[in-house]
Protein backbone atom coordinates (compact mmCIF):
# COMPACT_ATOMS: atom_id res chain seq x y z
CA UNK A 1 0.00 0.00 0.00
CA UNK A 2 1.37 3.43 -0.84
CA UNK A 3 0.82 6.25 1.60
CA UNK A 4 -2.07 8.66 1.19
CA UNK A 5 -0.73 10.79 4.02
CA UNK A 6 2.71 10.79 5.53
CA UNK A 7 4.77 12.69 8.00
CA UNK A 8 8.56 12.61 7.69
CA UNK A 9 10.93 13.79 10.39
CA UNK A 10 8.21 15.81 12.10
CA UNK A 11 9.44 18.23 14.73
CA UNK A 12 7.26 20.53 16.80
CA UNK A 13 8.17 22.61 19.83
CA UNK A 14 6.01 24.63 22.20
CA UNK A 15 8.44 27.38 23.12
CA UNK A 16 11.33 25.53 24.72
CA UNK A 17 9.31 22.30 25.11
CA UNK A 18 9.95 19.77 22.35
CA UNK A 19 6.69 17.88 21.70
CA UNK A 20 7.68 16.00 18.54
CA UNK A 21 11.33 15.14 18.00
CA UNK A 22 11.45 13.63 14.51
CA UNK A 23 8.49 11.37 13.80
CA UNK A 24 7.86 9.33 10.66
CA UNK A 25 4.40 7.97 10.05
CA UNK A 26 2.47 6.83 6.97
CA UNK A 27 -1.19 6.05 6.45
CA UNK A 28 -2.59 4.38 3.35
CA UNK A 29 -6.14 4.71 2.02
CA UNK A 30 -8.45 2.38 3.95
CA UNK A 31 -5.90 1.88 6.69
CA UNK A 32 -6.50 2.58 10.37
CA UNK A 33 -3.36 3.49 12.32
CA UNK A 34 -3.55 3.79 16.08
CA UNK A 35 -1.24 6.32 17.72
CA UNK A 36 -0.68 5.30 21.31
CA UNK A 37 1.55 6.18 24.23
CA UNK A 38 1.44 7.73 27.69
CA UNK A 39 0.05 11.15 28.49
CA UNK A 40 2.19 13.97 27.16
CA UNK A 41 4.12 11.86 24.64
CA UNK A 42 2.91 14.01 21.72
CA UNK A 43 -0.10 12.14 20.28
CA UNK A 44 -2.42 15.12 19.95
CA UNK A 45 0.38 17.33 18.67
CA UNK A 46 1.17 14.76 15.98
CA UNK A 47 -2.48 14.53 14.97
CA UNK A 48 -2.81 18.31 14.73
CA UNK A 49 0.37 18.53 12.63
CA UNK A 50 -0.76 15.77 10.26
CA UNK A 51 -4.16 17.44 9.88
CA UNK A 52 -2.50 20.73 9.02
CA UNK A 53 -4.01 22.44 12.06
CA UNK A 54 -0.59 23.05 13.59
CA UNK A 55 2.48 24.02 11.61
CA UNK A 56 5.57 21.87 12.07
CA UNK A 57 8.96 23.31 13.02
CA UNK A 58 10.74 20.63 11.00
CA UNK A 59 9.97 17.79 8.62
CA UNK A 60 7.20 17.53 6.06
CA UNK A 61 3.58 16.44 5.93
CA UNK A 62 2.73 14.99 2.55
CA UNK A 63 -0.84 14.46 1.38
CA UNK A 64 -1.38 12.87 -2.05
CA UNK A 65 2.24 13.58 -2.91
CA UNK A 66 2.03 17.27 -2.03
CA UNK A 67 3.88 19.01 0.80
CA UNK A 68 0.98 20.72 2.57
CA UNK A 69 3.41 22.76 4.67
CA UNK A 70 4.00 24.85 1.55
CA UNK A 71 0.30 25.64 1.18
CA UNK A 72 -1.34 28.83 2.35
CA UNK A 73 -3.48 28.80 5.46
CA UNK A 74 -6.55 29.21 3.23
CA UNK A 75 -5.63 26.22 1.09
CA UNK A 76 -5.05 24.03 4.14
CA UNK A 77 -8.29 25.16 5.67
CA UNK A 78 -10.09 24.20 2.45
CA UNK A 79 -8.36 20.81 2.54
CA UNK A 80 -9.56 20.22 6.08
CA UNK A 81 -13.10 21.14 5.10
CA UNK A 82 -13.29 19.00 1.99
CA UNK A 83 -11.00 15.99 2.39
CA UNK A 84 -10.31 15.65 6.10
CA UNK A 85 -12.62 14.83 8.97
CA UNK A 86 -11.62 15.70 12.53
CA UNK A 87 -13.04 14.24 15.72
CA UNK A 88 -11.91 15.15 19.23
CA UNK A 89 -12.66 13.65 22.62
CA UNK A 90 -15.36 16.20 23.30
CA UNK A 91 -17.53 16.83 20.25
CA UNK A 92 -17.07 20.59 19.80
CA UNK A 93 -20.47 21.05 18.18
CA UNK A 94 -21.85 24.49 17.36
CA UNK A 95 -24.05 25.22 20.40
CA UNK A 96 -26.59 27.37 18.51
CA UNK A 97 -27.37 24.66 15.96
CA UNK A 98 -29.46 21.50 16.37
CA UNK A 99 -27.82 18.08 15.96
CA UNK A 100 -29.00 17.68 12.37
CA UNK A 101 -27.90 21.23 11.51
CA UNK A 102 -24.47 20.54 13.00
CA UNK A 103 -24.07 17.41 10.91
CA UNK A 104 -25.42 19.06 7.73
CA UNK A 105 -23.11 22.07 8.11
CA UNK A 106 -20.01 20.62 6.42
CA UNK A 107 -22.16 19.49 3.50
CA UNK A 108 -23.71 22.94 3.13
CA UNK A 109 -20.24 24.51 3.23
CA UNK A 110 -19.23 22.12 0.44
CA UNK A 111 -22.16 23.29 -1.68
CA UNK A 112 -24.68 20.47 -1.15
CA UNK A 113 -28.33 21.56 -1.40
CA UNK A 114 -30.28 22.06 1.83
CA UNK A 115 -32.73 19.23 1.43
CA UNK A 116 -30.09 16.68 0.49
CA UNK A 117 -27.71 17.86 3.22
CA UNK A 118 -30.45 17.46 5.81
CA UNK A 119 -31.39 14.00 4.60
CA UNK A 120 -27.77 12.79 4.56
CA UNK A 121 -27.25 14.25 8.03
CA UNK A 122 -30.31 12.39 9.32
CA UNK A 123 -29.03 9.13 7.82
CA UNK A 124 -25.74 9.56 9.64
CA UNK A 125 -27.40 10.36 12.94
CA UNK A 126 -29.38 7.15 12.45
CA UNK A 127 -26.27 5.06 11.84
CA UNK A 128 -24.86 6.32 15.12
CA UNK A 129 -28.09 5.61 16.96
CA UNK A 130 -28.96 9.24 17.76
CA UNK A 131 -31.68 9.97 15.20
CA UNK A 132 -34.06 10.90 18.01
CA UNK A 133 -31.76 13.76 19.05
CA UNK A 134 -31.84 15.34 15.58
CA UNK A 135 -33.74 18.48 16.61
CA UNK A 136 -31.96 18.99 19.95
CA UNK A 137 -29.25 21.54 20.56
CA UNK A 138 -25.95 20.23 22.03
CA UNK A 139 -26.70 21.82 25.42
CA UNK A 140 -29.70 19.52 25.89
CA UNK A 141 -27.92 16.34 24.77
CA UNK A 142 -25.87 13.94 26.91
CA UNK A 143 -22.11 13.80 26.37
CA UNK A 144 -22.43 10.47 24.57
CA UNK A 145 -25.17 11.79 22.27
CA UNK A 146 -23.06 14.85 21.45
CA UNK A 147 -20.05 12.68 20.69
CA UNK A 148 -22.04 10.46 18.34
CA UNK A 149 -23.39 13.58 16.66
CA UNK A 150 -19.82 14.89 16.29
CA UNK A 151 -18.82 11.54 14.77
CA UNK A 152 -21.63 11.87 12.23
CA UNK A 153 -20.41 15.38 11.43
CA UNK A 154 -16.83 14.18 10.93
CA UNK A 155 -17.91 11.38 8.60
CA UNK A 156 -20.79 12.97 6.68
CA UNK A 157 -18.55 14.42 3.95
CA UNK A 158 -16.97 10.97 3.40
CA UNK A 159 -13.49 12.35 4.13
CA UNK A 160 -10.42 10.72 2.64
CA UNK A 161 -8.67 11.01 5.98
CA UNK A 162 -10.22 10.94 9.43
CA UNK A 163 -8.27 12.29 12.40
CA UNK A 164 -9.71 11.08 15.68
CA UNK A 165 -8.22 12.08 19.04
CA UNK A 166 -9.51 9.83 21.86
CA UNK A 167 -12.93 9.77 20.17
CA UNK A 168 -14.34 7.31 22.69
CA UNK A 169 -12.43 8.50 25.76
CA UNK A 170 -15.56 9.78 27.50
CA UNK A 171 -18.00 7.11 26.28
CA UNK A 172 -19.28 3.90 27.83
CA UNK A 173 -18.17 0.70 26.12
CA UNK A 174 -21.27 0.10 23.99
CA UNK A 175 -21.57 3.71 22.83
CA UNK A 176 -17.85 3.69 22.07
CA UNK A 177 -18.36 0.55 19.99
CA UNK A 178 -20.94 2.34 17.86
CA UNK A 179 -18.52 5.16 17.14
CA UNK A 180 -15.59 2.81 16.43
CA UNK A 181 -17.82 0.55 14.36
CA UNK A 182 -18.71 3.42 12.03
CA UNK A 183 -15.07 4.47 11.79
CA UNK A 184 -14.10 0.93 10.78
CA UNK A 185 -16.96 0.87 8.27
CA UNK A 186 -15.87 4.05 6.43
CA UNK A 187 -12.30 2.77 6.34
CA UNK A 188 -13.40 -0.57 4.84
CA UNK A 189 -16.15 0.70 2.53
CA UNK A 190 -14.98 4.15 1.47
CA UNK A 191 -11.24 3.65 1.82
CA UNK A 192 -10.94 6.41 4.40
CA UNK A 193 -7.50 6.54 6.01
CA UNK A 194 -7.80 6.89 9.80
CA UNK A 195 -5.38 8.24 12.38
CA UNK A 196 -6.78 7.09 15.70
CA UNK A 197 -5.19 8.50 18.85
CA UNK A 198 -5.89 6.44 21.95
CA UNK A 199 -4.27 5.20 25.14
CA UNK A 200 -6.58 2.20 25.43
CA UNK A 201 -5.45 -1.13 24.00
CA UNK A 202 -9.03 -2.20 23.34
CA UNK A 203 -9.46 0.85 21.09
CA UNK A 204 -6.05 0.40 19.46
CA UNK A 205 -7.21 -3.13 18.56
CA UNK A 206 -9.62 -1.61 16.04
CA UNK A 207 -6.61 -0.39 14.06
CA UNK A 208 -4.63 -2.32 11.48
CA UNK A 209 -1.43 -1.28 13.17
CA UNK A 210 -0.14 0.69 16.09
CA UNK A 211 2.49 3.42 16.29
CA UNK A 212 3.55 4.01 19.88
CA UNK A 213 5.14 7.31 20.89
CA UNK A 214 7.44 8.01 23.78
CA UNK A 215 8.67 11.52 24.54
CA UNK A 216 8.03 12.77 21.03
CA UNK A 217 9.61 9.87 19.16
CA UNK A 218 8.32 6.53 17.85
CA UNK A 219 9.06 3.69 20.26
CA UNK A 220 10.23 0.69 18.23
CA UNK A 221 9.14 -1.77 20.94
CA UNK A 222 5.58 -0.64 20.25
CA UNK A 223 5.11 0.14 23.91
CA UNK A 224 5.42 3.87 24.24
CA UNK A 225 6.66 3.30 27.77
CA UNK A 226 9.24 5.41 29.47
CA UNK A 227 12.25 3.34 30.46
Amino acid at each position, binding site marked *: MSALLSGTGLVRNYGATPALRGIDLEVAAGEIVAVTGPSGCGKSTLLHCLAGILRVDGGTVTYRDQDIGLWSEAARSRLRRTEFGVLFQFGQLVPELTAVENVALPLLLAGTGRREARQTALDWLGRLGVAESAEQRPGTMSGGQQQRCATARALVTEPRVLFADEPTGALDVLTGEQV*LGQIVRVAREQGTAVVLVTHE*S*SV*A*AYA*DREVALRDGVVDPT*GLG*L*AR
Partner: protein
Amino acid sequence: MSTAHVLLGLLAAGPRHGYDLKRAHDDRLPRAKPLAYGQVYATLGRLERDGLVTEAGQDREGGPDRTSYEITEEGRRHLDAWLSAVDPPAPYVTSELFSKVVVALLAADAGRARDYLVAQRAAHMSRMRELTTAKTEPGAGVGDVVAADYAIGHLEADLRWLQTTLARVADLQKEVTS
Protein backbone atom coordinates in the same frame (compact mmCIF):
# COMPACT_ATOMS: atom_id res chain seq x y z
CA MET B 1 -16.55 -24.75 32.64
CA SER B 2 -18.32 -28.00 32.46
CA THR B 3 -19.31 -29.65 29.21
CA ALA B 4 -21.80 -31.78 31.12
CA HIS B 5 -23.82 -28.73 32.13
CA VAL B 6 -23.86 -27.35 28.61
CA LEU B 7 -25.14 -30.68 27.30
CA LEU B 8 -27.80 -30.78 30.03
CA GLY B 9 -28.78 -27.23 29.06
CA LEU B 10 -29.14 -28.22 25.42
CA LEU B 11 -31.21 -31.29 26.38
CA ALA B 12 -33.51 -29.13 28.53
CA ALA B 13 -35.32 -28.08 25.34
CA GLY B 14 -35.94 -31.67 24.20
CA PRO B 15 -34.20 -34.95 23.28
CA ARG B 16 -31.25 -34.90 20.88
CA HIS B 17 -28.68 -37.18 19.31
CA GLY B 18 -25.03 -36.96 20.29
CA TYR B 19 -24.22 -35.62 16.85
CA ASP B 20 -26.79 -32.86 17.26
CA LEU B 21 -25.44 -31.97 20.67
CA LYS B 22 -21.93 -31.51 19.33
CA ARG B 23 -23.19 -29.19 16.58
CA ALA B 24 -25.40 -27.16 18.92
CA HIS B 25 -22.58 -26.85 21.48
CA ASP B 26 -20.15 -25.52 18.86
CA ASP B 27 -22.76 -23.13 17.40
CA ARG B 28 -23.89 -21.67 20.72
CA LEU B 29 -20.38 -21.30 22.13
CA PRO B 30 -18.36 -19.88 19.26
CA ARG B 31 -14.65 -19.66 20.11
CA ALA B 32 -14.99 -22.42 22.68
CA LYS B 33 -12.86 -25.44 21.83
CA PRO B 34 -15.05 -27.57 19.52
CA LEU B 35 -16.30 -30.76 21.21
CA ALA B 36 -14.89 -34.05 19.98
CA TYR B 37 -17.50 -36.78 19.39
CA GLY B 38 -15.68 -39.04 21.80
CA GLN B 39 -16.06 -36.40 24.49
CA VAL B 40 -19.79 -36.05 23.79
CA TYR B 41 -20.40 -39.80 24.17
CA ALA B 42 -18.16 -40.10 27.21
CA THR B 43 -20.00 -37.21 28.89
CA LEU B 44 -23.41 -38.61 27.97
CA GLY B 45 -22.29 -41.95 29.41
CA ARG B 46 -21.42 -40.34 32.74
CA LEU B 47 -24.64 -38.33 32.80
CA GLU B 48 -26.61 -41.50 32.14
CA ARG B 49 -24.76 -43.39 34.87
CA ASP B 50 -25.61 -40.59 37.32
CA GLY B 51 -29.27 -40.65 36.28
CA LEU B 52 -29.22 -37.10 34.85
CA VAL B 53 -30.07 -38.18 31.29
CA THR B 54 -31.66 -41.26 29.85
CA GLU B 55 -31.89 -42.88 26.42
CA ALA B 56 -34.94 -41.62 24.57
CA GLY B 57 -34.81 -43.88 21.53
CA GLN B 58 -32.86 -45.36 18.65
CA ASP B 59 -33.16 -44.36 15.03
CA ARG B 60 -33.07 -47.21 12.55
CA GLU B 61 -30.40 -49.81 13.24
CA GLY B 62 -28.58 -47.77 15.84
CA GLY B 63 -24.91 -47.13 16.44
CA PRO B 64 -24.02 -44.58 19.11
CA ASP B 65 -24.80 -41.51 16.96
CA ARG B 66 -28.34 -42.78 16.37
CA THR B 67 -29.23 -42.88 20.04
CA SER B 68 -31.10 -39.87 21.34
CA TYR B 69 -30.99 -38.74 24.94
CA GLU B 70 -33.33 -36.78 27.18
CA ILE B 71 -32.85 -34.98 30.45
CA THR B 72 -34.38 -36.57 33.59
CA GLU B 73 -36.13 -34.79 36.48
CA GLU B 74 -32.96 -35.30 38.49
CA GLY B 75 -31.03 -33.78 35.60
CA ARG B 76 -33.24 -30.67 35.65
CA ARG B 77 -32.72 -30.21 39.39
CA HIS B 78 -28.98 -30.60 38.93
CA LEU B 79 -28.95 -28.02 36.11
CA ASP B 80 -31.03 -25.59 38.14
CA ALA B 81 -28.62 -25.84 41.08
CA TRP B 82 -25.67 -25.17 38.78
CA LEU B 83 -27.39 -22.11 37.27
CA SER B 84 -28.03 -20.68 40.73
CA ALA B 85 -24.49 -21.23 42.03
CA VAL B 86 -22.29 -18.12 41.97
CA ASP B 87 -18.64 -18.75 41.10
CA PRO B 88 -16.39 -17.55 43.94
CA PRO B 89 -13.70 -15.15 42.68
CA ALA B 90 -10.42 -17.05 42.46
CA PRO B 91 -8.69 -17.00 45.86
CA TYR B 92 -5.10 -17.16 44.55
CA VAL B 93 -3.18 -15.29 41.89
CA THR B 94 -1.99 -18.05 39.61
CA SER B 95 -0.69 -16.78 36.35
CA GLU B 96 1.98 -18.06 34.06
CA LEU B 97 2.64 -14.43 33.05
CA PHE B 98 3.30 -13.35 36.62
CA SER B 99 5.41 -16.40 37.47
CA LYS B 100 7.50 -15.92 34.35
CA VAL B 101 8.36 -12.33 35.22
CA VAL B 102 9.42 -13.27 38.74
CA VAL B 103 11.46 -16.24 37.53
CA ALA B 104 13.09 -14.09 34.82
CA LEU B 105 14.25 -11.72 37.57
CA LEU B 106 15.47 -14.56 39.78
CA ALA B 107 17.21 -16.54 37.06
CA ALA B 108 18.33 -13.68 34.81
CA ASP B 109 17.73 -9.94 35.04
CA ALA B 110 15.34 -7.07 34.38
CA GLY B 111 16.22 -7.04 30.68
CA ARG B 112 15.09 -10.64 30.33
CA ALA B 113 11.82 -9.89 32.12
CA ARG B 114 11.28 -6.83 29.91
CA ASP B 115 11.93 -8.74 26.71
CA TYR B 116 9.37 -11.29 27.76
CA LEU B 117 6.78 -8.64 28.68
CA VAL B 118 7.28 -6.83 25.37
CA ALA B 119 6.92 -10.04 23.36
CA GLN B 120 3.91 -11.15 25.37
CA ARG B 121 2.26 -7.80 24.88
CA ALA B 122 2.74 -8.02 21.11
CA ALA B 123 1.14 -11.49 21.07
CA HIS B 124 -1.81 -10.32 23.18
CA MET B 125 -2.31 -7.22 21.00
CA SER B 126 -2.28 -9.26 17.85
CA ARG B 127 -4.89 -11.66 19.24
CA MET B 128 -7.02 -8.76 20.42
CA ARG B 129 -6.87 -7.19 16.97
CA GLU B 130 -7.97 -10.47 15.42
CA LEU B 131 -10.94 -10.76 17.80
CA THR B 132 -11.91 -7.12 17.27
CA THR B 133 -11.84 -7.64 13.50
CA ALA B 134 -14.02 -10.74 13.84
CA LYS B 135 -16.58 -8.91 15.92
CA THR B 136 -16.80 -5.90 13.57
CA GLU B 137 -17.22 -8.19 10.53
CA PRO B 138 -20.55 -7.30 8.87
CA GLY B 139 -21.99 -10.83 9.27
CA ALA B 140 -21.01 -11.30 12.94
CA GLY B 141 -23.82 -12.75 15.07
CA VAL B 142 -24.52 -11.68 18.64
CA GLY B 143 -23.05 -14.97 19.87
CA ASP B 144 -19.80 -14.23 18.04
CA VAL B 145 -19.70 -10.71 19.49
CA VAL B 146 -20.38 -11.88 23.04
CA ALA B 147 -17.73 -14.62 22.76
CA ALA B 148 -15.19 -12.15 21.34
CA ASP B 149 -16.04 -9.61 24.06
CA TYR B 150 -15.30 -12.16 26.75
CA ALA B 151 -11.88 -12.91 25.30
CA ILE B 152 -11.13 -9.23 24.60
CA GLY B 153 -11.97 -8.25 28.17
CA HIS B 154 -9.55 -10.81 29.56
CA LEU B 155 -6.80 -9.90 27.13
CA GLU B 156 -7.31 -6.26 28.04
CA ALA B 157 -6.84 -7.03 31.72
CA ASP B 158 -3.62 -8.88 30.93
CA LEU B 159 -2.44 -6.05 28.69
CA ARG B 160 -3.00 -3.52 31.41
CA TRP B 161 -1.00 -5.67 33.78
CA LEU B 162 1.79 -6.22 31.22
CA GLN B 163 2.05 -2.48 30.70
CA THR B 164 2.11 -1.48 34.36
CA THR B 165 4.51 -4.32 35.19
CA LEU B 166 6.88 -3.13 32.48
CA ALA B 167 6.97 0.21 34.23
CA ARG B 168 7.66 -1.53 37.57
CA VAL B 169 10.18 -4.14 36.49
CA ALA B 170 13.21 -2.26 37.79
CA ASP B 171 11.62 -1.80 41.23
CA LEU B 172 10.45 -5.38 41.31
CA GLN B 173 13.95 -6.56 40.56
CA LYS B 174 15.35 -4.63 43.52
CA GLU B 175 12.81 -6.31 45.79
CA VAL B 176 13.26 -9.80 44.35
CA THR B 177 17.07 -9.72 44.50
CA SER B 178 17.46 -7.90 47.80
